[in-house]
């Protein structure tokens, strides 16, 4: 199976990546090659095999619903690109 330029545009949009026209063909080619590698998986019949997400099939540990963090907003925001009154600034979203 191969990936064409239209598909690359769709994936790039989902991934919030901006690719210019020259890059698109290159990505289509490389991604198709990687897909070729991945499709070797179909050589094995995995019907009925239980998918594995974790080596011990561990379930996510829960913790008490209690506050354990302290307010470190100023420290965390020292490295922010743009803030105001403790809020992160981004381009207008709501008209």
């Amino acid at each position: 199976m191969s990936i064409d330029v239209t598909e690359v545009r769709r994936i790039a949009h989902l991934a919030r990546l901006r690719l210019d026209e020259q890059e698109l063909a290159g990505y289509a080619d490389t991604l198709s090659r990687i897909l070729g590698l991945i499709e070797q998986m179909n050589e094995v019949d995995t019907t009925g095999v239980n998918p594995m997400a974790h080596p011990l099939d561990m379930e996510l540990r829960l913790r008490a619903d209690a506050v354990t963090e302290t307010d470190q907003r100023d420290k965390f925001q020292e490295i922010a690109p743009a803030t105001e009154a403790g809020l992160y600034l981004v381009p207008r979203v709501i008209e």
Partner: protein
Amino acid sequence: MFKKSVAELAAALAAKEISSVELTQLFLDRIGQHDALNAFITVDGERALDQARAADALRGDGKAGPLTGIPLAHKDIFCTDGIRTSCGSHMLENFVAPYDATVVKKIDAAGMVTLGKTNMDEFAMGSSNETSYFGPVLNPWDPKLVSGGSSGGSAAAVAARLAPVATGTDTGGSIRQPAALCGITGLKPSYGRVSRYGMIAFASSLDQGGPMTQTAEDAALLLNAMAGFDERDSTSVNEAVPDFTAQLDQDLKGVRIGLPKEYFAEGLDAEVGAAIDKAIEEYKRLGAEMVDVSLPNSGLAVPCYYVLAPAEASSNLSRYDGVRYGHRAGEYGDLLEMYERSRSEGFGSEVKRRIMIGTYALSAGYYDAYYLKAQQLRRLIAEDFTRAFETCDVILGPTTPATAFAIGDKSSDPVAMYLSDIYTISVNLAGLPGMSVPAGFDSAGRPVGLQLIGQYFGEAQLLNVAHAYQQASDWHRRMPQGYE
């Protein structure tokens, strides 16, 4: 002095042959002298000397432990409060984490001195350290060759003795492969053994941090400090941490070493194979019993990994949006454009490739064919190991199919690069502990690595088997020319 292992340095410090401040200055000088290797992204001499002074004071009060005052380098993937953590990327080029990773906290608590942060493939995605925004790391054995990746900086630093020990991370081989290519020892612990809190995430079900050292003994000492349950890591396993040095000197009589036939088949370079064969003979002399085993689904480990890892990466890297930290584009119109420009400017091409493949595999209509299928294959690969371990205690094979390749050789074809992880990847998929130890050189003088794979939480036995080999050989003491 700089050639000493961590265990030897601890003895030298205890005997007052040298102070931690002098030792730290010695390594800082070496790092400066060998800047061309490009092993470090950040060096913080002032902070290191402060830590060294504190360590010397602790020793003066009689409170020194086995690692107190010993310098080390951290792979630039571990968050260090107050020191830049770049993850080898333009995206985090100016990122100073406001907290320490658990691994960093534990190593600081053991009294070690942090020299700096080592170079790495961008976001840990690579097998050659060529994808780093900060340039490739040169192999100290031959500057035209890659150091391996993604923990290339840590591997080169230890090989050149710019630091006696370093931390690394391993998702598909990123500790073991550069250790093999640079002629040092590296250990990837069992999944869940070492906390991932503060370790910048690549593939959450595969990532593990571990030590990169000169010896198995040093790896055991470091693992003692690094391992342990952590509340803050939801995948941390609550398993008791034994003293990993306790079993080191046990003899190997009766230990069964499994040799998977798939690891000695085509694709393995003849000289690498010959070195591994010699090591097998040595293990027989040490009293171990060789057992033939089979890992039939090995061939599908690479395709399986290159679905799972990029898929998890695409999810983990979605946090880099230019909003709260990291690179934000200088010019943009609306929010979408801010996201797209920040991400496209911040990430390099290998990272973008993997995000794209991961996004594709997880997108509607493809999830079952790719991600789910890969998870099923993962189960089969893990079961191969469980079956093999019914007849052996530890598995042995080459770490890599060939020795270090030239810089630029594989960077044009990602698939060729991916295939160099062929022996290491299954170990991450199964969550097992794995090590690489030096096992000789090829005719061009390039290091060969031997891989040992242990049972889940079986690091003590793994380290014992590695240590026994290092008592009977001296590959791990060799040093590259120009660095002695």
